[in-house]
């Protein structure tokens, strides 16, 4: 049997990690470009060859019609689910898709799990080059708020990449694991995970017992369509509007030009995490140059509504855990978007404590996945994760009313029974329509 690894399959970047047998510490594996971050970008060349990661990111500018980023947003979703995304993201959905979305890259079309599988294969090859041994089993992380279809799509991607998926672990839980090992802290921990495409909040309790540590998730909440991408899109909207007004230039939202503009705006966003102001320059060929200074204050105002959207899930998770913000012993930040000063300030103000960010927010999820992978692999249990179902489970009853049977934030595995009667006399069969979520009507 080959090696077992932990993988963070992210919206923007993906990472692979393992547990070092000597030090018992998790480590991220670097790829051929020296970084442990593999851009979650896939591009299909004219010869049909698929490239992944850094070289694919370069193609985003040169061959946008053959290149895809943020594919995680499409995992486990149907065409009807992603109408809002399609207005903003340059996904080229195959017109033939209905339940399963197919994306066109050049002259071929792919499902989201197929594209994700290319990313997983790339990471697998990094690890195999590093170990000089085959890698065949993995723990993969998913946003805590992913539903069953999104989780299944992630498992499918693993299988397509030739990996046996030992377990899917929720990203904030994985982060808490890595962090708990690092700090040896006990008590209530809030993990605020603001990534490229998804937002999650998890409230955990860390308990030490005579036999080992228990990481009990008390509540989780989130938004699977809220992330750094939304900040990029807000900046992009601003720039497009100004360029339209001043230079009378309109962008095709799928074209190459907009990718170049997007790239410089993302750089500006990164700079504003440390600098008070930055300048964006974008050449408009004959029409001149779009030069724009963006101050931190203006940036903060622009993104304030996006950051505010993260706070509703935070409040709901705390209410479900029956805890007040000040009862948190630690607050941990995960995900690249938590580098933004306004995010840190908003979270710090709400919990009335300085959030922790001493572990690299990009790496921490993969590190936690590696810890869990090692436990499943070796059977040496030093800690136990008790996770929850993020969404309520129920069945559809007469008139489309949903009867919730297992409430959200129940520790899993869970079971429940409830008695239902048939709708008409002498009914001989029933269809059981299982539903996930908080709506009251199917």
């Amino acid at each position, binding site marked *: 049997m080959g090696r077992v690894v932990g993988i963070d399959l992210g919206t923007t970047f993906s990472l692979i990690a393992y547990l070092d047998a000597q030090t018992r510490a998790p480590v991220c594996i670097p790829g051929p470009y020296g970084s442990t971050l593999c851009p979650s970008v896939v591009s299909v060349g004219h010869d049909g060859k698929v490239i992944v990661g850094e070289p694919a990111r370069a193609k985003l500018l040169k061959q946008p019609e053959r290149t895809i980023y943020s594919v995680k947003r499409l995992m486990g979703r149907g065409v009807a689910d992603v109408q809002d995304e399609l207005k903003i993201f340059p996904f080229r959905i195959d017109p033939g898709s209905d339940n399963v979305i197919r994306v066109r890259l050049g002259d071929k079309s792919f499902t989201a799990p197929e594209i994700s599988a290319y990313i997983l294969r790339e990471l697998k090859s990094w690890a195999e080059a590093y170990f000089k041994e085959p890698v065949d089993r993995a723990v993969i992380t998913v946003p805590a708020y992913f539903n069953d279809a999104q989780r299944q799509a992630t498992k499918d991607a693993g299988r397509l990449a030739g990996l046996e998926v*030992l377990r899917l672990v929720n990203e904030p839980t994985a982060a808490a694991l890595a962090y708990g090992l690092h700090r040896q802290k006990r008590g209530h921990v809030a993990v605020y995970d603001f990534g490229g495409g998804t937002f999650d909040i998890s409230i955990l309790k860390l*308990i030490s*017992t005579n*036999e*080992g540590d*228990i990481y*009990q998730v008390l509540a989780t909440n989130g938004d699977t369509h809220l992330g750094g991408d939304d900040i990029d899109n807000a900046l992009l909207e601003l720039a497009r509007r100004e360029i339209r007004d001043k230079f009378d230039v309109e962008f095709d939202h799928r074209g190459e030009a907009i990718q170049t503009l997007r790239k410089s705006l993302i750089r500006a966003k990164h700079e504003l995490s440390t600098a008070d102001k930055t300048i964006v320059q974008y050449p408009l060929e004959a029409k001149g140059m779009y030069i724009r200074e963006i101050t931190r204050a203006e940036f903060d105002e622009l993104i304030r509504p996006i950051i505010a959207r993260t706070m509703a899930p935070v409040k709901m998770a705390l209410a479900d855990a029956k805890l007040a913000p000040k009862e948190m012993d630690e607050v941990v930040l995960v995900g690249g978007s938590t580098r933004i000063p306004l995010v840190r300030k908003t979270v710090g103000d709400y919990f009335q404590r300085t959030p922790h960010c001493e572990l690299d927010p990009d790496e921490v999820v993969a590190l936690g996945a590696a810890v869990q992978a090692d*436990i*499943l692999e070796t*059977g040496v*249990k030093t800690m*136990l*994760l*008790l996770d929850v179902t993020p969404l309520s489970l129920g069945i559809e009853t007469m008139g489309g009313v949903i009867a919730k049977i297992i409430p959200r934030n*129940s*520790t*899993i*595995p*869970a*079971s*429940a029974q*409830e*008695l239902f009667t048939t709708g008409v006399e002498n009914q001989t069969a029933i269809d059981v329509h299982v539903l996930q979520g908080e709506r009251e009507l199917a």
Partner: protein
Amino acid sequence: MSVIRSQDVQAEGIPVTSCWNCRAAVTGAHFCAACGKVQPLPTGASYFAFFGLPQKLTIEPASLEGQFHMLSWKLHPDNFVRASEFERNLSLERSSQLNDAYRTLRDPIARVEYLLEHLGVRKEGTTKQQAPPELLEEVFELNESLDELREARAAGGDVAVLQGRLEDAQQNFQEKLDEVDAELAGLGRQWDAAVDFGGDDSKKQALLARMNELLNRRAYIRNLVAGVAKELGS
């Protein structure tokens, strides 16, 4: 009635069976005392028995949580990744039962509901939806105010007074809810004493019946409060 049959864990009527692995005698324990293998769930065992607790309504939250963590550590499917499929299923079954039992018993109201259901006093999913007679008048007024508010909203009229009236009603019903909870807690203590000191059957039956009435009343008032909150919030 089956009520009195089950006063404590031993008396829950869990039959003595033999361990599927080593044939030693087991009586509902999670693991066989002889060979240590995880055991199937006995049929009809209660959530109380799962935690080794008597069927009483006062439960110390910290000790229940401690038990939950201890049992999670032992029963979680992670421990059985490499075991046979049969054992993996047993672990899954026991872990699910553990999580369901903990979710139910840690909540004082769910705990009473469960006890009544387990003892056959309360049928699952048969919460009475008609208004308790002594509340009829207030419920009638409340519904009237709700209708008026909806009409006023639709007509674009002044809703401040109506909203104030509804907030008062909400407050009033919330207080009633607190009264019900306090009375339930008192009955719970009486029940526990009857269990401890072998109170007579008819007294226990009366306590259970009263608790059942209170639960129905509670469910009804809670629906009202939730309905008003929803209307005020919209």
